[in-house]
């Protein structure tokens, strides 16, 4: 018997290689779960990650890129890149430069980093669902 909330089938994901599925999950928050037929969870994840990301931008947070001589910036860049297409669109739009003097700068960074890391966890969860390690 299927677990509560699990889909009857996942036709789109069945045709996709695992790497493509994981790439889709990274690029668009929630897309991996949507392709696997988890529509409710996909919607919630997309909403949570987008909210965290846009709040972070609104609070003058910075989309950090690697800086020479600053090892922690590499970790922050990985977390920020985890937001997928949100990161690239914001960068293209000239957003996310950060205002270091703003009182909310660190809070903005926290929201942006949180959004990216949550999406990276979704990529791993998409993998687990796709290979059958997680039933729901």
């Amino acid at each position, binding site marked *: 018997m299927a*677990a*509560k*909330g*699990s889909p009857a089938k996942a036709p789109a994901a069945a045709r996709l290689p695992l790497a493509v599925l994981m790439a889709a999950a990274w690029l668009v928050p929630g897309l991996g779960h949507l392709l696997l037929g988890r529509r409710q*969870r996909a919607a*919630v*994840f997309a909403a*949570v*990650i987008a*909210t*965290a990301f846009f*709040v972070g931008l609104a*609070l003058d947070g910075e989309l950090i890129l690697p800086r020479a001589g600053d090892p922690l910036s590499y970790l922050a860049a990985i977390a920020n890149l985890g937001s997928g297409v949100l990161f690239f669109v914001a960068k293209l739009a000239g957003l996310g430069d950060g205002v270091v003097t703003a*009182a*909310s700068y660190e*809070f903005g960074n*926290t*929201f942006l980093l*949180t959004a990216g890391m*949550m999406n990276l*966890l*979704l990529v791993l*969860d998409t993998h687990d669902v796709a290979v059958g390690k997680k039933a*729901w």
Partner: protein
Amino acid sequence: MLDHLSLLLLDAALIAVFFAFLWKSDGAARWRYFWKVFLALSLGAIAIGWLMYPFPRS
């Protein structure tokens, strides 16, 4: 702009919703888990902030 406590609560709420849906499959378990994570993050941050009072800023 929201004050720092409101921002802390908002971040904790977003994270709690995320993990509740990531790790729990039914509604009741999700609610319980949401409150556990939300309270742990909120009260934990306040407790750590309070414990840091004695330390100098610079």
